[in-house]
């Protein structure tokens, strides 16, 4: 079974530039998550989708971050304009549904460095 796919794997941009990350979840998984993991910290949930609807985006900095999952499958996360503090690993994850205790499968992450 294919895992969660993410791209690009690594990205270096200058501050104030924009960047987009793509995620393809495990086939059949209705719930998709984007997490931000800053070095030395645990993952922090940015946004959670159930199919193509947003369930939770309370910690998404909406002035610069946006995400969509138009057809309920793939998702993109965009940052515009980027700030130095956005340097982090952006982890996409998916699960069958949003039942508590469901296994969440993570991708390898997209590493962003803002200089």
């Amino acid at each position, binding site marked *: 079974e294919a895992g969660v796919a993410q791209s690009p794997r690594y990205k270096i941009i200058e501050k104030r530039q924009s960047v987009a990350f793509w995620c393809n979840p495990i086939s059949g998984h209705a719930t998709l998550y984007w997490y931000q993991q800053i070095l030395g910290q*645990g993952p922090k949930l940015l946004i959670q989708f159930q199919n193509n609807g947003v*369930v939770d985006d309370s910690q998404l900095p909406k002035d610069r971050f946006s995400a969509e999952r138009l057809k309920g499958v793939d998702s993109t996360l965009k940052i515009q304009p980027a700030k130095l503090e956005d340097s982090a690993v952006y982890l996409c*994850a998916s699960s069958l549904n949003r039942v*508590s205790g*469901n296994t969440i499968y993570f991708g390898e*992450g997209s590493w962003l460095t803002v200089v």
Partner: protein
Amino acid sequence: TQLLEQSPQFLSIQEGENLTVYCNSSSVFSSLQWYRQEPGEGPVLLVTVVTGGEVKKLKRLTFQFGDARKDSSLHITAAQPGDTGLYLCAGVSRRTNAGKSTFGDGTTLTVKP
């Protein structure tokens, strides 16, 4: 905001030693999960505990959920270099959106051969 505190933050031991890491919160969780994350990869689920007082074993790893469902521990017996990694706990609160996991900042374990 439900905060999960993990301790110790860093742990370096010799192969063959035993260790315990902790995950504590003031919040009650409906379930708690432990993940291991290796450098350059995403976290991988090790176990989910649901019932207060529950103990689960996975080979040399023993996971315990506190009676009050606010804390958990992970004990590793006879650690091996392959156990090296970042151990993360994540809790799902009864009061939050189902399926949303709040992560601690992890314990970085290094097992030296």
